[in-house]
């Protein structure tokens, strides 16, 4: 599949018969690109991720991926009462490649410890996952994705509601991962943040725009993407009023 690690052509899919939650999505993402996926709640960001993960049957179109992607959900969707440590969670990234009758390999344990160190949480490896802060939990889930070692990472609003230290760590990590030649698709509501990345995909039940931030992040495109959720601030920039909900 040439240089593209993600190739989506005319994708359409949905949950209810006859109703497309997302349609007419076509884009390529090459190794080293961070793609911001912008859109309102219910606009199709999660639907796109589910389609890329193989959880949603395509009604039309094709999806080509360079290997199984890893998925980093929003931290509040993970169980906080689950009896696991941060290291246990990072190790879950190795479960998929370990047969049920085998113990986890020593190299996987080392990889989990190294992944936690990479997200700045080596000292918290033995802490109960549910006792960590929201930003720390998000970094643990990213460490788990690092252990998976997937070429494509799907991250669902990884910077929403995290503390400044965690946000800085996560953004620095994005730069490192893209430098390693991976593709990162990052669902976000933050258009300003998206300007720092290589590509922007705007969704509102259909593809509104895709391309470089300078070409895509215009007020017309944002208006078409967010509609009434978009507000213009006093300095002329735009912001999105978002109430997060399950979708």
């Amino acid at each position, binding site marked *: 599949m040439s240089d593209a690690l993600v190739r989506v052509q005319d994708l359409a899919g949905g949950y209810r018969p006859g109703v497309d939650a997302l349609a007419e999505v076509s884009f390529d993402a090459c190794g080293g690109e961070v793609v911001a996926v912008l859109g309102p709640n219910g606009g199709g960001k999660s639907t796109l991720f589910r389609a890329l*993960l*193989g*959880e949603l049957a395509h009604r039309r179109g094709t999806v080509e991926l360079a290997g*199984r*992607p*890893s*998925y*980093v*959900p929003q931290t509040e*969707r*993970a*169980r906080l*009462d*689950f*009896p*696991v*440590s941060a290291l*246990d*969670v990072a190790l*879950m*990234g190795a*479960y*998929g*490649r*370990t047969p*049920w*009758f085998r113990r986890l390999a020593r190299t996987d344990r080392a990889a989990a410890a190294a992944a936690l160190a990479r997200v700045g949480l080596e000292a918290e490896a033995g802490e*109960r996952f549910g006792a960590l802060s929201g930003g720390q939990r998000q970094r643990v*889930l990213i460490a*788990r994705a690092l252990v*998976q070692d997937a070429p494509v990472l*799907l991250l*669902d609003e990884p910077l929403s509601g995290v503390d400044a230290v965690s946000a800085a760590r996560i953004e620095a990590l994005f730069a490192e991962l893209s430098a390693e030649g991976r593709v990162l698709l990052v669902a976000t509501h933050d258009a300003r943040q998206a300007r720092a990345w290589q590509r922007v995909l705007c969704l509102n039940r259909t593809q509104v725009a895709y391309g470089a931030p300078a070409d895509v992040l215009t007020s017309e495109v944002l208006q078409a993407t967010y509609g009434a959720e978009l507000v213009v601030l006093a300095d002329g920039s735009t912001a999105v009023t978002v109430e997060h909900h399950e979708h």
Partner: protein
Amino acid sequence: MLADPITRRALLEVLILALALGPLGVWVLLHRQAYAAESLSHGLLPGLVLAALAGLPLVLGAAGGALVAAGAIALAARDERIGADLGVAVAVSTLFGLGALLALAPDAPPRLEELLFGDLLGISSADLAAAAALALAVAAALVAAHRPLALAAFDRPAARSLGAPAARWEAALLALLGVGTVAAAPGLGSLLLVALVIAPAAAALQVTRRLPAALALAAGLAMAAGVGGLALSYYADLAAGASVALCSAAAPTFVRLAT
């Protein structure tokens, strides 16, 4: 107490059941399926009654009853007009009522109490062998499925990308719950067996920080409840199944006071 062969057999039965049902309960609670556990154990009563009326082994009746109950619960839970919880409650109450109706019919042998509350001291060697085989199969399956069950319970949205489709493993857990229920129904009864599944697991999850410790402690507490319940039954001359259920239910309080 152990000089009595009936009590020895009951002890062996409850220890083997506890070994499987304690850890099974941890998974049931982590997957938020406690209501399903209670529904399944209550809903299989008609199967037990029909087996008793036909003179068949109770474990066969429990298996048939569990299959029908699981089907009815799955169908009822799908009805979006009334909601899953209400649908399951109606299905289970209907099945339980049907079982009681059959058991209280004029021609039925007077065994309803035994079916509801079990007959731990009256189990045969064949009952014990069947319960042991089923319980050990459940315990082995839980060990083999440890990682996917953990993924599906801990992080449902990401489980598939980590190699464990959540819906598949949730269904597998319900199947194991059905087998465990069938194993325990003849000895502990349709009403009481859920205590051995839920209470030791709830106690273990209160005080442990890691999953292997929770699974081991739940098995240990369930076994202790089994031994304690039989001792209580023997020395205080109380019903054995009810004594085991009471000791199981005391586990969370005991653990909280002890820690």
